[in-house]
């Protein structure tokens, strides 16, 4: 059985498209490599004993990982947009949301320009429209 390809086969065009979405960092190989240890740190918080050690001494726990001072600072500040820029992935960092006891959506709202109650209301009202935030180069 043959079917026409549903994807661009040019990987360069494919990857360029992934960078063309406003306010979005797609978890590409480049980000996965950059954020490797940062994400593995977040992953370690799945174990209760690690959560306890991290909570007792966040800085000391972070110093056990091969991550940059900039990334450590972003973790301590819970600056999730900065963490995305440093190769962090949201599914890995959801372990930090849980460790902090913060709702997933509330943590997500900190990456937007809206306070949590406004973000929550936006979702109840039907969410953010894709209008105008589909493409940077096509301005649509």
């Amino acid at each position: 059985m043959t079917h026409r390809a549903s994807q661009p086969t040019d990987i360069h065009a494919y990857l360029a498209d992934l960078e063309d979405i406003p306010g979005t960092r797609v978890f590409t190989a480049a980000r996965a490599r950059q954020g490797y240890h940062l994400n593995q740190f977040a992953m370690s918080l799945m174990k209760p004993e690690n959560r306890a050690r991290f909570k007792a001494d966040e800085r000391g726990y972070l110093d056990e990982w091969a991550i940059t001072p900039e990334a450590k600072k972003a973790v301590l500040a819970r600056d999730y947009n900065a963490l995305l820029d440093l190769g962090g992935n949201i599914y890995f960092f959801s372990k930090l949301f849980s460790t902090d006891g913060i709702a997933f959506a509330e943590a997500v709202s900190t990456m937007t320009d809206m306070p949590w109650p406004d973000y929550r209301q936006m979702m109840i009202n039907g969410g953010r429209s894709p209008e105008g935030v589909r493409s940077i180069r096509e301005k649509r």
Partner: protein
Amino acid sequence: MARLTAGVASSHVPLMGVAHDQKKDRDDYFGPIFAGYDWTRQWEKEQKPDVVILVYNDHASAFDMKIIPTFAIGCGEHYKPADEGWGPRAVPDVIGHPDLAWHIAQSLVLDEFDMTIVNEMDVDHGLTVPLSMMFGDVAEWPVKVIPLAVNVVTYPPPTGNRCWALGEAIARAVASFPEDLNVQIWGTGGMSHQLQGPRAGLINRAWDNMFLDGLVGDSDHLRHIPHIEYLRETGSEGIEMVMWLIMRGALGKTTRCLHRHYHVPCSNTAIGHMVLEPQP
């Protein structure tokens, strides 16, 4: 012979599991979400499937950055709910069906789908939330489950076309299993949602409903949607919908819709749910 009798699609938002576990599922916020599953819970009681092939994605639970399988099939005897950072969900262990799972795994490899075979892993909300939505509060799950995990976290995930073709190959594998089993295939995740960055909270009701429409009948146009369209139109995590195409591909040329449900929001996400059966 084993029979693939139905396909079920459902979102798998962690908060649905929380609402279920904390018995908030009929309050003002969650009531409209769960009401859309009442029909299916009754239908599943009547259908009594023996096995569910449950297509889902692992959210950095069993698989971290060390190993990233594109398609992984669970061939183990049982799986425990994962601790995703707040302790494991208090739901029953998931019981596998190693005979059928290994049969499917072997058949797929010979059919040129090079699967990763997993014998031991914990399963996260991607797998346990759909079980709760379809079966409710139970002492043990009333079905055996074959987990089929798809990478939709690290790019590139598999294409929609490849997912559809995998579904077709799964259907061939099930049909050649000698035991008489009632088998369902579930596709989970989605619908529109973006969990990251300043664009978080994106929802696209029109696109989601176009996608639901496309699952019904004899069209296969959904298999050709490129990744970039999911990302632009449905948010960065909307890409999970490619997993629904494995379910759809397995149902053959034509489907009939038995039940359909759509609700916004649950947390950051649009909830979509559909029950389909293959039409001969």
